[in-house]
């Protein structure tokens, strides 16, 4: 574990100016409005592992994905790739080739006017990796085979494929520059379940075979459990809990994490009444003071409303970080017994 992580993120933040146009703003007499999409988060991803970020829409997880590959410059903090500041790393083709991204929407992530072979070969050409048309063709064929498509599919256009097949093409494109680090932004959420399983299996196989490191973004806790080594739970632009996958699922500590798990409809729960979390996610333009979860939290007190909790080792746990005053003070009833999820619940 002494090895340096492939990716480190330190106090990363990204703010967006969502003010109305200047003239309207002046006429209405309002100030500038800032959306704090990501508001000071830190994590590291060791080589060959998967870190997942989960959260509901608007929690900033996709913004993190885009910050990490340099699509947005950070407003604060920094991203360190292989010990090198991201901006410097991205300026070097050899470093840039080592990070790739897979997107959510298989219908928008492939240029509809390009043939599949050109889509897959784009990174190869951009990095001048395989000179010669014949060698390139062979490489594309190999990549298509690797993701479970036929080399003949290269001649087709994206619209001739189903959603799952398109996602395979996306993966082939991402793999074509021999990357070490893949950012996967909701890679299966636009897919049907049976196809989702295909893609998740493929991604796991590829990780095992090629030693890839993943940053996996998802809103689906069950999917995240299948692929992750560690999981970060995000709420309103902040990490509220960061723990090894098994620890998070067996002993979730943050009240939001627990609420999320409670809320998920589980197949085994046929007939059981769930306890929904009250309230809705507040707007990230005017987030609540103190802990962002406090308006919905059952354990809220005055300190939660005033003071922002830091992400610190959770009390009475060997592993895992939690940003919660209640956990820190032991007001949460201590380490929960195995959560009542899944099979244990059907016994009722």
């Amino acid at each position: 574990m002494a090895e340096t992580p492939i990716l480190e993120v330190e106090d990363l933040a990204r703010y967006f100016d969502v003010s109305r146009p200047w003239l309207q703003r002046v006429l209405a007499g309002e100030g500038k409005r800032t959306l704090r999409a990501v508001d000071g988060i830190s994590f590291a991803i060791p080589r060959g592992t998967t870190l997942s970020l989960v959260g509901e829409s608007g929690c900033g997880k996709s913004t993190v994905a885009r910050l990490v590959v340099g699509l947005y410059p950070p407003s604060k903090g920094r991203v360190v790739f292989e010990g090198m500041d991201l901006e410097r790393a991205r300026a070097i083709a050899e470093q840039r080739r080592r990070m790739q991204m897979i997107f959510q929407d298989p219908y928008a992530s492939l240029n509809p006017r390009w043939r599949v072979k050109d889509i897959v070969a784009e990174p190869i050409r951009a990095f001048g990796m395989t000179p010669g048309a014949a060698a390139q063709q062979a490489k594309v064929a190999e990549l298509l085979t690797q993701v479970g498509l036929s080399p003949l599919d290269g001649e087709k256009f994206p619209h001739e494929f189903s959603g799952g097949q398109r996602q395979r093409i996306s993966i082939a494109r991402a793999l074509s520059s021999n990357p070490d680090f893949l950012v996967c932004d909701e890679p299966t959420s636009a897919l049907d379940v049976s196809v989702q399983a295909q893609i998740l299996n493929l991604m796991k196989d590829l990780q095992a075979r090629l030693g890839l490191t993943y940053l996996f973004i998802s809103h689906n806790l069950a999917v995240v459990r299948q692929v992750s080594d560690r999981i970060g739970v995000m709420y309103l632009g902040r990490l509220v809990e960061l723990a090894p996958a098994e620890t998070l699922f067996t002993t979730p500590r943050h009240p939001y994490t627990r609420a999320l798990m409670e809320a998920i409809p589980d197949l085994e729960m046929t007939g059981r009444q769930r306890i929904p979390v009250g309230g809705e996610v507040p707007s990230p333009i005017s987030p609540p003071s103190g802990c962002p979860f406090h308006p919905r939290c059952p354990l809220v007190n005055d300190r939660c409303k005033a003071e922002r909790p830091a992400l610190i080792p959770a009390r009475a746990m060997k592993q895992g970080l939690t940003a919660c005053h209640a956990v820190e003070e032991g007001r949460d009833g201590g380490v929960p017994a195995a959560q009542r999820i899944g099979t244990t619940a059907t016994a009722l």
Partner: protein
Amino acid sequence: MAPLLEVRDLRVEFPTRRGVLTALDGVSFSIAPGEVLGVVGESGAGKSMTGAAIIGLLEPPGRIAGGQILLNGKRIDNLRYEQMRRIRGREIGAIFQDPLTTLNPLYTVGEQLVETIQTHLGLDGAEARKRAIGWLEMVGIPAAAQRVDSYPHEFSGGMRQRVVIALALCAEPKLIVADEPTTALDVSIQAQVIALLKGLARDKGTSMMLVTHDMGVIAETADRVAVMYAGRIAETGPVREVVKHPKHPYSAGLMASIPPLDRKVEHLAQIDGAMPRLSAIPRGCAFNPRCPEVFARCLVERPVLLATGATEAACWLYDAASEKHAPEAMPHG
């Protein structure tokens, strides 16, 4: 008990320039009073189209080309638009995935509720408004008496879907067709909306057809479930049976490919391939190219729904006349 809704051998076609596509082919099911039927399937399976056919809102050029839809024993599939409009709202309420398409942005939610209540129940303005506020309270909108005069855009996504539910329920229909009512919502909001729908259906004795791709939502809400594939019903039965002991190889594969929340599995079960396009539905059983149990008969003869245990599956495995024996029930849980 006589069913509230009965769909018999429904066939929906889309004429295109490359020939007529059959989007629904021989779909039959019924919903008893007070029952919640879940209709589940992957995109393109025809589940939303079934709902649209029932409420008479098939998108042109789609058309009902065969079969019957009966509400309380009366045919509603051949009604004219005006007649159907009266049934929609009064007898069948509809909830769609995107609440914004259901709500008129130019009117307050109160005006929309009052209009529906007045049209269908014939109450006077003051009484209708009182009812409208009552419905908003019932679907859990805080400060309903004030919010009743707000416009749809002033509500958040989850609250808007509650308004849509109130709008679908306020004329006290006997049947609700809910098409992906929670898909656009976040998990934590989803749970609230499901709990609400379920509670209201139970309290009012309303029947519901719940169309969704989310097996978890079905498992939690429905009494019975129909699994659709390529415009046909693959399996139908009590929700617990279909979830725990699916008989049709497609439903079995579908259940197994859902990632479990309570454990990590090394390799998720997957169904290879993809659902066929409507223009290329294979002969015999539509699932035959992807089916692990496929045998000769499946390639030529289209299976009918066959009773097997507590469920019915459209699979030749369960016909004694077939040369093949039933596989073991899926080990699950």
